[in-house]
Structure formats: C-alpha cells, structure tokens
C-alpha cells in the first residue's frame, strides 16, 4: 500500500479566519452598544443642564402643568407652544392603547392560525396557509399604514360609527397585522416541535384529536407560544410607520379607544426632523427613545424569565 502524505494545514490562515469572524461579531456588538450610549447621552442634559431644566424636568414630564398661571393644569404634550409642556402620559397611553388593540387582534388570530395549521389542516392546506401568513411580514409597514389610513379607517368608521376616523382601534388593527406573522410563525414552530410520541400516547389512551391538542400539545408548546406573544408585543411597541399614519397623532389623555392617539415612536419620527439641535425638545425626544428601549428591554427580559420558568416546569425539575 502506498504511503499517504498528509498536507499540513496552515495555522496562519486558520488564525486570520478566526480573528476575522471574531471582529465581525464584536463590530455588531459595539454598534449596538454605541447606539444605546448615544441615545442615552443625548437624553442626559434633562438631568443637569440648567437652561433645559427651566423648560423641562422629569417632574414636569410626570406632573400636570398649566399653560399659564391661573389656567387649569393638564397632562399635555405641546412642545411647540410658547410655554412648551412635555407630559409623557398622553404618549404613554397612546402607545399602550395601540399595543393592547394590536395584541387583542393578533393573539387569537396568530395562535389560532398556528393551532389550525399545525394540528388540523391537511398537508395541502398547511402549504397554503403558512406562506400566506408569513407573507404578511414581508409587506412594508408603510404599505400597511397606507391601507389602514385609506381603506380600514373608512370601513371601521362606516361600520361602527366612530367619531374620529383615525383612532387607536384603527391603528391597533393595522399594527396587529404586522404582529400576526411573528406570533404565528413562532407558535407554529413550537406546536410542530412537540414530539409526535406524546400525541401518539394520548391517542392510544382514547383521547380524540381535540383533546390531544388541548391537553398535551398546547401545554407542551406553551413556552414557545408565550415567546411569540412577548416578541409580538415588543414589535407592536416599537413599530412606527403604521401608528404615524393611522392613529390620528393626537396626544390626548383619554380612556376611550375610539379617540385618536399618539405613540412614543410616532412622536420621535414626526418631531425629530424639525427640532432645534440641542434644545430641550431635542433632549426630550431622545429621552423618549431611551424609555422605548428600556420598555422593550424589560418586556423581553420578563418574557425570557417566564419562558425559562415554564420550561423548567414542563420538562421536570421543580
């Protein structure tokens, strides 16, 4: 037999390749970190700059402010007034209302669709439903916003007789359309990844298809479904274009879902381009951005913790 001569591998190329990949990873990490630092830094003057503090402080953003002495104090977002006021409450309420409607709309449709597609649909049907729903996420949000602004708003107003054409329900439903594919895809993956042996065991014990789904598959897939919902909520809070176009953009304090709203994200998008660089308004907008980042961060963290707890419970080990 002929002697084999093995070629020595180049240590140098291996070294360069490994370092190159590491650099890529760190660039991405650094970019994320730098963006956060920049946003927080631009918001900071609110806490120490005297000129800015004359106009706005944390307290002024939370407590009711009056336009002038003798006038009634209100929660209002009026950055361009002679006496600018920056109450966060109307924006917070607007963001919350749009997200709540979006989730109320998207959770039943996304999770329900995932259950149907993964458990009850024929193979053929599934091959139609899955790509169709996932295609929703490929639609640019400006197109969905346009649709909500022109078509959906008119339809909803004609059907339910809303006073304001553009309101949180209209924006929330359009927002829900972007959240559905997210919830659907993650839930569907979770449901189909439940081992078939569990379904077999339940069937062999005389359970019917519906019982198998509700008592075995669904509980086992719950962490995945919860993850989908949490990520969907994060998306709904951060989404900008749709709420900018379809919500009416009125920063008002109201509990009625039929009133117009304005969200954090839409406020930043619509005002940052015209704001005076370095002004109080400028810092406040960055403060909003920081808050938005913190919200989504906390939501994702809570989601993760819930997921880990659920997983532990489902997979044994108390």
């Amino acid at each position, binding site marked *: 037999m002929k002697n084999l001569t093995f070629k020595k591998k180049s240590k140098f190329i291996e070294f360069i390749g490994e370092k190159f990949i590491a650099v890529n990873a760190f660039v991405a990490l650094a970019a994320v970190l730098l963006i956060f630092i920049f946003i927080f830094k631009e918001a900071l003057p609110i806490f120490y700059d005297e000129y800015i503090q004359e106009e706005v402080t944390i307290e002024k953003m939370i407590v009711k402010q009056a336009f002038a002495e003798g006038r009634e104090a209100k929660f209002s977002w009026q950055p361009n007034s002679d006496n600018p006021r920056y109450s966060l409450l109307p924006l917070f309420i607007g963001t919350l209302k749009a997200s709540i409607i979006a989730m109320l709309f998207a959770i039943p449709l996304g999770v329900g669709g995932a259950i149907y597609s993964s458990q009850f649909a024929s193979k053929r049907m599934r091959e139609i439903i899955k790509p169709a729903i996932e295609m929703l996420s490929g639609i640019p949000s400006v197109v969905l916003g346009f649709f909500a602004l022109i078509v959906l708003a008119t339809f909803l107003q004609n059907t339910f007789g809303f006073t304001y054409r553009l309101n949180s329900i209209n924006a929330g439903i359009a927002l829900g359309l972007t959240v559905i594919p997210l919830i659907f895809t993650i839930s569907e993956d979770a449901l189909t990844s439940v*081992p078939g*042996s569990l379904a*077999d065991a339940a069937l*062999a*014990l*005389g*359970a019917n298809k519906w019982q198998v789904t509700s*008592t075995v598959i669904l509980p086992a897939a719950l962490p995945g479904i919860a993850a989908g919902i949490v990520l969907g909520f994060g998306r709904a809070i951060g989404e900008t274009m749709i709420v900018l176009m379809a919500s009416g953009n009125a920063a008002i304090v109201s509990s009625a879902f039929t009133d117009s709203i304005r969200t954090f994200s839409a406020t930043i998008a619509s005002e940052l381009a015209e704001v005076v660089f370095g002004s109080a308004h400028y810092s406040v907008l960055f403060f909003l951005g920081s808050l938005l980042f913190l919200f989504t961060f906390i939501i994702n963290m809570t989601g993760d913790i819930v997921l880990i707890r659920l997983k532990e419970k489902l*997979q044994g*080990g108390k």
Partner: protein
Amino acid sequence: MHKTKISVDNIVDNQTFIPNYPIKMSIRDVDFFYGSQQALYNIHLDIIENQVTALIGPSGCGKSTFLRTLNRMNDTIPGTSLTGTIQLEGVDIYNDFSDTSMLRTKIGMVFQKSNPFPKSIFENVAYGLKVNGIKDKAIIAEAVEETLQKAYLWDEVKDKLDKSAFLLSGGQQQRLCIARALAIQPEVILMDEPASALDPISTSKIEDLIAELKKNYTIIIVTHNMQQAARVSDTTAFFYEGVIIETGDTKKIFTKPIKQKTEDYITGRFG
C-alpha cells in the same frame, strides 16, 4: 417485497391444533398499504386470551405496522389503507367501531420509547381516565393508586406523585407508561419493543410485569430480542417481509420451527 399474494394455506399455523383456548382477537386476510406501497400481505393470526403473543422478525418486516393496525394507530398516518378483517371478540374493529377512541380504551398501547407527558406522575396515570370523561376526583385517585400498584411502581413513587414524570429513571418511566395504559382498564395491551431502550435490570422488571399482567390482560408484544420473546411469550408469530412465515407455540417455534426461514432467523443467521 413479495409481489404475489401468498394464500392462507401456505402459512403454517400450528396453534389451531391447540384446543380450548379462547380467541381474543382474530385477524383474517389483512393487507396493509402505505399509499401504494404494500407493507402487510394476507395476515392471518389468532390472538389467544390471557396469553402473551410475541411478534418477531427482522427490522422493516412489518411487525410494528401490524401491531399498530390492531388499535388503528395507523389511521393517523395519511394515505394508509387496510383490507381484510380484524375482530375483537367477534366485533370488527374497522367497521363496527365508528369511534376509534372507544376502541383504544379497550386495546391499550405501550411504545418503544417511554413517552410520559410533561405532567406530574399522578396526572400521567390519570390522563386516560380524564379524557374518557371520568371527573370524580376520589375515583381517579383510587384508580391511580391501584394502577400504580399493578405496575409495581407504587412503592417507588407514592411520595412524589405530584412531581414531574421526567424525574423518574428510564425504566420507571416505561413502567409509568404501562401503568398509564392499564389505568383505563383495557382488555388487550399492545407493546412495541417496550424494553429496547432499557438496561438489563429495568428490562427484567418489565418482563416480570408482563408475566404478571397476562393473568388479567391479553398482551401482544413486538420484540427484537429473541431471548425476550422466548422468555415472556406463549405464542410467537414470525414476520418476514410483510408476511407471517410461521406462528405457533413459542416453545415449538424456538425448538422445532417448521420453516427454514424461521430457523435461520432464530438461530441468528440473518436479521
């Protein structure tokens, strides 16, 4: 695969010579197809009550497929079809049972890999009762204890009934799966290589359990393990390429098989 049908006369069936054994299930002329691919040819077999029937044969010979026709588990696979008749005490399980879930309460099943639900030990055993409409908590609790005792698992788990079933060892999990199947009081229990993933000690516990269970149940077991078939079963059916080559008393099959193919297989010449 055999393309020609083998007539019933060609199948050696020496169990018909044994008189006075009540027949629990009878299988006649069963052909089974995955789509257009035929997996079982003209299966003819009687399952005797309160006995252990072992199904042996090389991988892919159709013994697991056959086992799954007996409680209609193959119905869940799209595109499968079956011709011929399978009767449980004279009742045709394919034509007279419109509700497969009712059939499966009479014919239970234990799978190759233990597959407890991600629930507590108690809930695992209670599951079959609950999905079949038993709500009374006292009845369920009593049935769970009784069943776990029948599976010789009670002493090992009585203090941790509310703990996850995943905390049990592999062998305990498989006995839990057997207990789970027993809870709904089936008449026949199908076992698909129930000990193939277990260590020798756990395997022997399962085999002891099978020997004990046959007093009250009719058991059909698929196994790759010749010694196991010889140890636990009363009757053996040898499957080869979708056909039953030989059936009969286990002792006879393992000592004086009639067909050359059977002898070749049990002596380890192929398989």
